[in-house]
């Protein structure tokens, strides 16, 4: 059995013993359980596990805090700090808010009332103020899932409206994200206030849900706490449902009731009746008081006006000279005044008029006195001294001044009065009164006359004196100046006692020079002469002749005299002169042979001319030079023609006929006479020209032309033309036997050319090369030309001018003898010479 058992269950027994051993050994058991504990905990229902673990965890935390509070503080620090910070922030806000409100209401009627309420209820004044001043209403409350932004619940106050709350709640969390992302805010805080005008959105963030309250008005900061409490309560009640929220809000129906408490929060403005009774009583009282004030104010105003008028009168009196106000007072509605007055001063009574002070109320007491004020003294002096008409008394700086002329008796009296016055009174100054005794007067008059003469232009007083009642004067005078005698009139100097001695002179004073110029130059009416700064200036317009005269006069004057400026006289003759110049030019043109002026006019300062001109005649444009006619103003129109004037005909003939030097063309009595020797050909051409010209009425007399004597030349010509230079067959250079022939030919050509030149004829020599018929024609042609070229070179070498030599190759075409003859070939291989005369 044992064996059987061993066989059957030995494996199980060993396994069982291993397990028993495991359970018995705590170390091993701990290791085994530790291996499965995390997954066991993960699989256990959360709620139960939480409950089971809670007491142990609590105790563990407790122990941990007892042992070292620091560890847990460090753990919780990130959680607490924002909460603490927020709480402190809100507390500070609360304080500010209550302070603001307290200040705002401290001196108002409400303030008093609320103080009473504070005293009555025992609450602090600021509390009472806040209670009354913070008017707000929570209109909406949104509970929003923190994770998805989906709306969990939404409650609205009565009459409050909003858009779709689902969209709003999502958008609010989107904005939360937006702010957090935009400003890189890593902390677990959130956007807790949004304010838009009167509307505030307060958001309280819980672990799973955010409670957003929409508040209209001015909420107290404590409201945060109230809302937070609501959120806390919601989390307590439905923590699990909130955590597991996946969009189905039916699980969280109870939440709305909590939110409803939120929405019911509000503080409404107390509406009190208007205190009609108090206002009416206050109004009545103020009307009565106002009436009384107005009446008393009015009478005081009236009396004030009266007194001020009196004061104006008194100050007016005081300002009056000769009146001294000693005393004045107002008593029982009456006015009293006392003082001194000068009899010459104004009457105080009369001064009352116009002041609106009732004279009946004025009681005056005036005593007379003599005022020492200058104007009163002046009045008294005028009365006592009776000054003559020539004396004037006046007041100058509180002094009395007598001026004018008076007899010495009056002056003495005045001086006595001045001495009397000097004690205390103003000064009486009589120093300006002149003593008018007759001698003094006469001398004065004479001096006036002399100074009058002295100021006269053109009069120089050299000497003057008074001797025994006679007046003597001597000096120079310009005949154009004023007459000294006539100046006596009106001076009260007796002419019979004046002895003058005047010598004439020419004054260089501008006005005299002006007079003399006017007399000598006879300026036309258009010229005005005047004196400007001692210069004589002529202005206006005058013909150039006058200007020339004036210029001459100015030059004469220049030594010592005043300047005579005629630069401002405009020459009025430019147009006339221009016309003159033009006429001169036209006549110059007309005098020119080969130019026919057909028409010419001067118009608007421009000159127009037209006509015919021979191309060989002078250029009309060139003729302008020296005429002073402005070329720019000349408009010419010339047509070419052939003048039949013998001079032009001669020119043309010279150009066309090129007469030899031995011929001379001359004009004798309108006829063109050709004299001299010429080759017959030229004579023929001249005769042909003479016939043509005779048709135009021009006589060309060729009868005196003699034919050039060419006999000697002809002989020479013959000799030249019969000379041939011969060549060996196929050669282009003549053999040495030809050298004397070439020498002779060169001499003959030179002689002929020279003789011809003497006769006015140019001789040219044509060198023609020839060949025999042997060989090809083209080769022969070139040989013949080459032979002619060679001869030219050889002649040139012998002193013949190359331009006289012409060459051509005739090939076989011009044989000297028939080719078939015996000597044909050798005779034909040559260069022949022909003479041409141009």
């Amino acid at each position, binding site marked *: 059995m044992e064996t059987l058992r061993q066989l059957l269950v030995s494996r199980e027994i060993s396994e069982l013993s291993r397990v028993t051993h495991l359970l018995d050994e705590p170390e091993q058991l701990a290791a085994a359980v530790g291996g499965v504990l995390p997954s066991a905990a993960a699989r256990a229902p959360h709620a139960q596990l939480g409950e089971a673990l809670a007491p142990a965890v609590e105790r563990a935390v407790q122990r941990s805090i007892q042992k070292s509070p620091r560890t847990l503080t460090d753990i919780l620090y990130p959680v607490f700090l924002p909460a603490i910070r927020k709480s402190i922030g809100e507390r500070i806000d609360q304080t500010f808010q209550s302070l603001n409100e307290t200040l705002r209401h401290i001196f108002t009627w409400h303030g008093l009332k609320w103080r009473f309420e504070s005293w009555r209820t025992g609450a602090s004044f600021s509390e009472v103020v806040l209670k009354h001043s913070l008017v707000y209403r929570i209109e909406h409350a949104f509970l929003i*899932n923190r994770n*998805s932004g989906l709306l969990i619940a939404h409650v609205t106050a009565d009459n409050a409206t909003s858009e779709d709350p689902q*969209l709003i709640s*999502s958008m609010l969390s989107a*904005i939360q994200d*937006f702010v957090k992302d935009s400003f890189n805010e890593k902390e677990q805080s959130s956007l807790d206030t949004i304010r838009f005008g009167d509307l505030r959105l307060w958001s309280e963030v819980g672990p799973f849900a955010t409670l957003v309250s929409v508040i209209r008005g001015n909420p107290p900061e404590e409201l945060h706490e109230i809302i937070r409490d609501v959120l806390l309560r919601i989390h307590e009640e439905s923590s699990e449902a909130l955590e597991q929220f996946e969009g*189905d809000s039916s699980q969280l129906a109870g939440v709305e009731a909590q939110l409803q408490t939120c929405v019911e929060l509000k503080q409404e403005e107390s509406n009190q009746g208007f205190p009609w009774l108090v206002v009416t009583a206050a109004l009545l009282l103020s009307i009565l008081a106002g009436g009384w004030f107005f009446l008393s104010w009015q009478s005081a105003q009236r009396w004030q006006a009266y007194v001020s008028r009196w004061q104006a009168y008194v100050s007016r009196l005081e300002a009056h000279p000769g009146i001294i106000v000693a005393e004045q007072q107002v008593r029982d509605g009456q006015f009293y005044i006392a003082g001194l007055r000068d009899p010459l001063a104004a009457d105080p009574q009369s001064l009352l008029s116009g002041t609106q002070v009732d004279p009946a109320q004025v009681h005056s007491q005036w005593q007379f006195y003599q005022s020492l004020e200058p104007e009163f003294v002046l009045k008294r002096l005028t009365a006592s001294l009776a000054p003559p008409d020539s004396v004037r008394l006046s007041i100058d700086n509180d002094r009395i001044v007598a001026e004018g002329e008076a007899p010495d008796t009056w002056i003495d009296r005045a001086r006595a009065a001045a001495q009397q016055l000097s004690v205390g009174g103003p000064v009486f100054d009589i120093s300006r009164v002149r003593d008018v005794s007759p001698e003094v007067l006469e001398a004065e008059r004479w001096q006036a006359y002399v100074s009058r003469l002295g100021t006269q232009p053109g009069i120089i007083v050299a000497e003057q004196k008074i001797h025994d009642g006679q007046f003597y004067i001597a000096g120079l005078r310009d005949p154009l100046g004023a007459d000294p005698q006539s100046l006596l009139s009106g001076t009260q100097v007796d002419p019979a006692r004046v002895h003058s001695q005047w010598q004439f002179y020419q004054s260089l004073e501008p006005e005299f020079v002006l007079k003399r110029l006017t007399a000598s130059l006879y300026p036309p009416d258009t010229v005005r002469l005047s004196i400007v700064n001692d210069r004589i200036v002529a202005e206006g317009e005058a013909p150039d002749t006058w200007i020339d005269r004036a210029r001459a006069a100015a030059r004469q004057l220049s030594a010592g005299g005043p300047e005579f400026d005629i630069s401002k006289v405009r020459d009025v003759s430019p147009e006339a002169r221009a016309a003159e110049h033009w006429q001169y030019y036209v006549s110059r043109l007309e005098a020119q042979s080969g130019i026919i002026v057909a028409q010419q006019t001067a118009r608007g300062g421009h000159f127009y001319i037209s006509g015919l001109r021979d191309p060989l005649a002078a250029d009309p444009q060139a003729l302008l030079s020296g005429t002073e006619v402005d070329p720019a103003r000349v408009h010419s129109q010339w047509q070419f023609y052939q003048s039949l004037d013998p001079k032009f005909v001669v020119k043309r003939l010279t150009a066309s006929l090129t007469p030899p030097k031995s011929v001379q063309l001359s004009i004798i009595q309108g006829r063109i006479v050709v004299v001299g020797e010429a080759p017959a050909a030229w004579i023929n051409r001249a005769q042909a020209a003479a016939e043509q010209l005779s048709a135009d009425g021009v006589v060309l007399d060729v009868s005196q032309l003699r034919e050039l004597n060419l006999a000697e030349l002809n002989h020479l010509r013959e000799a030249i033309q019969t000379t041939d230079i011969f060549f060996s067959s196929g050669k282009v250079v003549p053999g040495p036997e030809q050298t004397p022939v070439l020498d002779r030919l060169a001499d003959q050509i030179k002689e002929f050319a020279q003789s011809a030149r003497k006769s006015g004829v140019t001789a040219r020599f044509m060198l023609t090369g020839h060949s025999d018929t042997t060989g090809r024609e083209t080769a022969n042609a070139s040989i013949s030309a080459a032979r002619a070229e060679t001869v030219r070179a050889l002649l040139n070498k012998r002193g013949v001018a190359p331009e006289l030599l012409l060459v051509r190759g005739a090939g076989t075409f011009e044989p000297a003898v028939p080719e078939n003859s015996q000597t044909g070939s050798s005779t034909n291989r040559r260069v022949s010479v022909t003479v041409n005369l141009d």
Partner: protein
Amino acid sequence: MLQKKICMLGGFSVGKTSLVRRFVQSIFSETYLTTVGVKIDKKSVALPDKTVDLILWDLAGEDDIGSFRVSHVRGATGLVLVVDGTRAATLAAALTLRERVEAEFGAMPFVLLFNKSDLADRWVIPDSEIDELRQLGWQIYLTSALTGEHVDDAFRQLASMVAK
């Protein structure tokens, strides 16, 4: 009331916004896309047993994947990937965006829309390629924002996928 957060992803100018414009409820203007970077619309889809409100987060089109705000996708239960059928590069962009999202938040249901199907003459995506993707079991629709073709089908499909 069942709601689901859906993100619409796609390259720049693939027509996401036009695609939903005519078929969804919206209260926000399109300027939100350029300011906040996201625009929220709602599409209610009635399934046989219930109605699902798809809260569509239309994220601003980004060709530059680096600047894509992945945080907007947090809490989403499905994706709408939008490709412009006339631009091959937008397919790669959409697939990259999806990979990016899955790496961050794990796999989630999606539909792939080849948009602008009305522009047949400019179409560049070969049918073979689309068939290959279908072989992977992907839900693919050729849509046109212009004609509205298949747009509703796509949203209905996605709604049934996320409501399970």
